[in-house]
């Protein structure tokens, strides 16, 4: 969905609230039918007969119905929200007086043009005498129209706000889904499914345990991914799950050397901090080596800090430039640690012939402690 959230301002200046739909225009014009009838009834006394009054007033009402649509521009020029009541009233008064005057003059033209053939002698004199009631009615009707426009604009604006709130909700939901998708590398998922497919014949037990491992890993990463911080032991459990799946895929090519200091147990880390690094180590390291190698993971306590070391062999004849995927994952780790431990987190990357090493160092904070 296009995020055109800011295009629709609360006062949408691009569409007339009545002209925007045929339905609204029809309703508006129908509302003018009783108005025209009342006008005829009120002004009938000043004319000779019903037909005469109708012949003059009915077309004038229709004309004024359209003229009053221009009240919208007045509403735009004097939005109630930002202008003082005095300014709004002044603007409205001037506009209504002007439009009523124009209306009366237009009526005069109409009367003069029908007089020769309409067989109502003295019509124009009678019309001129009706100036005061016509003019007053014109002013009142214009003000009424302006009120209706203000009302419609307000209703539309509040609907717009509601719609935007909904759109925002949808966007937030989408972002969440995207984040979840990003956590799970499609390569990893499809290759694991392929391993399961291969195991079903040769090793049904193995296939089942691979299914369980995969399900467990996916579930855990979804649950952990929605949290702000988790104890490092949970993150390490996720890493173990991930490694056991990859072990099925790579077999002898993948070995793991771990060294985890139990003193680090309760330290908090942002979720999915280490797992993506391990994933990189396999994808850009082990997977590109014919005979594979060992991924080394060390988690040590150093005073108040925790230090995580991840090392993997890389193809010395391979690309010399750092891999884009790995680079992105590392940037992500850096920015997350920097946000969580401003000025106290350290990320070191070392690459030499045949070896890639990432070292993370940040304060160890336990549940319930604050910095």
């Amino acid at each position, binding site marked *: 969905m296009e995020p055109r959230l800011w295009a629709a301002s609360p006062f949408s200046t691009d569409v007339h609230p009545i002209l925007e739909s045929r339905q609204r225009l029809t309703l508006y014009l129908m509302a003018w039918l009783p108005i025209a009838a009342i006008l005829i009834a009120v002004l009938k006394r000043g004319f000779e007969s019903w037909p005469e009054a109708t012949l003059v007033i009915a077309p004038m009402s229709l004309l004024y119905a359209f003229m009053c649509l221009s009240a919208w521009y007045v509403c735009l020029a004097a939005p109630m929200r930002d202008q003082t009541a005095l300014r709004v009233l002044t603007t409205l008064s001037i506009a209504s007086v002007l439009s009523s005057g124009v209306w009366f003059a237009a009526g005069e033209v109409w009367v003069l043009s029908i007089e020769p053939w309409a067989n109502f002698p003295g019509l124009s004199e009678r019309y001129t005498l009706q100036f005061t009631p016509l003019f007053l009615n014109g002013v009142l009707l214009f003000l009424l129209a302006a009120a209706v426009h203000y009302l419609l604009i307000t209703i539309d604006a509040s609907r717009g706000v509601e719609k935007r709130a909904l759109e925002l909700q949808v966007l937030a939901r989408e972002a969440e889904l995207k984040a979840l998708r990003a956590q799970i590398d499609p*390569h990893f998922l*499809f290759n694991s499914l392929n*391993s399961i497919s*291969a195991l079903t*014949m*040769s090793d049904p037990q193995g296939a089942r345990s691979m299914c369980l491992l995969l399900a467990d890993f996916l579930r855990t990463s979804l649950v952990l991914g929605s949290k702000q911080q988790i104890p490092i032991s949970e993150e390490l459990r996720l890493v173990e799950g991930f490694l056991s799946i990859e072990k099925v895929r790579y077999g002898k090519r993948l070995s793991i050397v771990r060294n985890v200091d139990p003193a680090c147990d309760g330290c908090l880390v942002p979720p999915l901090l280490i797992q993506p690094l391990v994933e990189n180590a396999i994808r850009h390291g082990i*997977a590109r080596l*014919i005979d594979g190698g060992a991924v080394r993971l060390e988690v040590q306590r150093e005073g108040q800090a925790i230090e995580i070391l991840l090392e993997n062999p890389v193809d010395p*004849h391979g690309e010399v430039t750092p891999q*884009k995927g790995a680079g992105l994952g590392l940037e992500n780790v850096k920015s997350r640690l920097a946000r969580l431990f401003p000025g106290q987190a350290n990320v070191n990357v070392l690459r030499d012939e045949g070896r890639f090493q990432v070292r993370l160092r940040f304060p160890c904070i336990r549940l319930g402690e604050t910095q």
Partner: protein
Amino acid sequence: MKPLRLVIADDEDLARSLVREFLKDSLDLEIVAECRNGFEAVKAVTELKPDLLLLDIQMPRLDGFEVLELIERETNVIFITAYDQYAIRAFDVHAIDYLLKPFSAERLSEALDRARKKIDRGEPTTTAALAAEARPPGTRADRILIRDGGDVHVVPMARIDYVEAQDDYVCFRAEGKRYLKQQTLADVETVLDPTRFVRIHRSYILNVERLAKLELYAKDSHAAILRDGTRLPVSRSGYSRLNTMIG
């Protein structure tokens, strides 16, 4: 009917065993080699000349596209991949068959049938443009692959001193060694990093990092002296290209 001779190239044992499993009852097929990496695949194709290669894209040392580049027009290829958006788009464009992991036995035999028909018609499978299109944007190949019989030399671009045209071949000079490849110099020029390599002459492309100095030896005529003392001719247009590059 002559059995189809097949080579499987996939670095995962399980993935290869799955293909073997699917094909174990097919009488019209013979798996002549199983390869665990790109080097083995190139070697197997060169030496065994199979009818068909089942080629995984993600492999160590040489990936599927590099294998394709090295064995071009010799073998029909069915690609296998788990997930490569760019590659899949490129396969669709060039009508190359591919299998997405995990795939079924039916899908595999369908691909094999199609390949057999293609082989019977004698259609070539591969196109040179494919590999370039299939790579994600912004990932330029940073090495030159040269096949020498069944062996493959991998020469990182940074180690190349200069490239020289020699009849139908180009000769890459890197760290005192020469590698011959059947290609045109113009083709080489398109794959080399333009911030480092410059065409200085009809027959020469130079890695500017190796340049020691430029000598004027006749009117309008220059020679490039490399760090190791090699002299290369520089044409007039080559001289202006070189000048714009090194400022």
